[in-house]
């Protein structure tokens, strides 16, 4: 596979403060490679530098040092932009235009002419699920609908590389499902998708690889299968039983949490032999509602990595 996106020591400093400006490093020597056809999740807490990275790749910002290449050409190259799609975080467009008019405007900027413009616009609007609202001016659109229009404009040119900055932001569950389906369809077509998010469940569903950014530094990167060992962390067992059994449950489980309707949630240790526990409880008159293994999630990993970085910085290690 060839690299779709490469960055080498990409660094961005901003100047903060009005009277006594001081430098603030938003991105710190970021070196990263995203292969063609990958869906890469760029994760990090708020203010980690995810949007800065995307803006550097789209050359809305200029790097302080380092370089970025997209499809083998320097970021910002006019010919490369023809092959890219970009959705900004909380996008804002021309509210005096209708969705159709705005997309037709952008389609013409991509060089499409005549009937091709209308065909493409109609196709992408269908793809993102905008129906008759397409003839309304954007000022009448909700935040979620604007996000969909943003997605549509990013797909206009059948991009080879698609950059999405928090694409699920502002969307209702249906909208999120829709965007997820669009990304999965693009992945199937071989499009490279680079998206930033702090919604980890989406990243877990969609990404082949992820990178974790904390305070401008890439603290982890790799395939999900390597990052998460999918190690068994325990068992979640829900049982229904009378109060006379509650005291005994505490001896079988690490934690016992009463739920509604007389149900109780038990957290068992990974080596607790759930078959034996289930047999024991059944014999004592309890009925089993559900039994599920608990494995490490991307969220666990994220919390662990972000927490470790924050602790290291607080103790001054590596400063």
């Amino acid at each position, binding site marked *: 596979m060839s690299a779709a996106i490469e960055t080498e020591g990409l660094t961005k400093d901003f100047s903060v403060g009005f009277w006594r400006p001081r430098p603030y490093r938003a991105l710190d020597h970021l070196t990263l490679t995203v292969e063609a056809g990958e869906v890469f999740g760029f994760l990090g807490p708020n203010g980690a530098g995810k949007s800065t990275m995307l*803006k550097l790749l789209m050359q809305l*910002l*200029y790097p302080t040092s380092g370089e970025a290449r997209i499809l083998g050409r320097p970021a910002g190259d006019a010919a490369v*932009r023809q092959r890219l799609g*970009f959705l900004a975080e909380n996008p804002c*467009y*021309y509210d005096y*235009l209708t969705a159709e008019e705005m997309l037709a405007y952008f389609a013409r*900027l991509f060089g499409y002419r005549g009937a091709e413009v209308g065909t493409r616009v109609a196709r992408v609007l269908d793809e993102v699920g905008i129906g008759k609202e397409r003839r309304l001016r954007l000022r009448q659109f909700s935040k979620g609908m604007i996000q969909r229009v*943003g997605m549509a404009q990013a797909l206009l040119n059948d991009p080879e590389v698609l950059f999405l900055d928090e694409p699920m932001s502002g969307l209702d569950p249906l909208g999120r499902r829709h965007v997820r389906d669009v990304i999965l369809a693009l992945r199937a077509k071989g499009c490279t998708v680079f998206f930033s998010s702090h919604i980890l469940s989406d990243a877990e569903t969609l990404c082949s690889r992820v990178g974790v950014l904390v305070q401008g530094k890439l603290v982890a990167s790799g395939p999900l299968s390597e990052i998460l060992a999918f190690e068994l962390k325990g068992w979640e067992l829900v049982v229904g039983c009378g109060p006379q059994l509650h005291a005994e449950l505490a001896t079988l489980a690490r934690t016992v949490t009463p739920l509604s309707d007389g149900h109780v949630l038990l957290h068992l240790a990974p080596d607790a032999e759930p078959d034996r526990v289930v047999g024991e409880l059944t014999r004592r008159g309890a009925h089993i509602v559900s039994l599920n293994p608990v494995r490490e999630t991307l969220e666990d990993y994220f919390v662990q990595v972000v927490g470790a970085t924050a602790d290291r910085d607080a103790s001054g290690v590596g400063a």
Partner: protein
Amino acid sequence: MRTIWIVAGASFKESVRDRVPYTMVVFAVLMIAASYLLSELTAGQDLKIVKDLGLAAMSTFGLVIAVFIGIGLVSKEVERKSVFGLLTKPVSRTQFILGKYLGLVTTLAVNLTVMTLAYYAVLFYMDVIATAGMRASWAAPALDPRQLVAIVLIMGQLAMVTAVALLFSTFSSPLLSALLTSGLWVAGHFNGDLRQFEQVVDQPAVAWIARALYYLLPNLAPFNVRAEVVYGLPVSASHVGFTLLYALSYSSALLVAAVAIFRRRDFK
């Protein structure tokens, strides 16, 4: 070039869908019409008043539209972040600036055309109802086509003011841009005085600064030929040609500066 025109087209559409320019044009047309009523109160000066007020209304309202839209042309896009959508398409920053400029100049040209039609309609009415005696007292015919020269120069001036507003819009807020542009417009009309300044001051440094300012600030006085047109005095072709060439050169220089600033900007 196609990209520039596509951006210009969208910019023009934005102005067309904005109510403010409409209001200004309607107000200007009303003022041109009202000048006729005013002329009724004066004896023998009726046509002069209509021409004077009409051309002044075109110039003033054109200026208000140029400043009002021009100051937000770039800064509004940056502020509301709609610039992200555009600059991530195959559009260079130079094409963006030139497109925005041409869009507004086209808007101004259309607005000025509407005002010109209203102006000539009033003059036509006056011409129709005028007696032979009244016509004889006029310094120039009512429908004198030379008035178009004044209107063309107003357009040249507006194109220059638009470039000034656009330049400020690339790096400052709309309010500051409005103040700076209006300030330059006022200074531009008194620019000629700076040339004479060195004759009344003894200090060479002050004289040098005055001369530098004379060349640096826009010189808008040559664009005002209203008095000549109203009194039927000749306006030479060379004056018109050189003034328009000056507008073109000065606007081009400002656009080069605007592009240079905009190309270096980070969009956070």
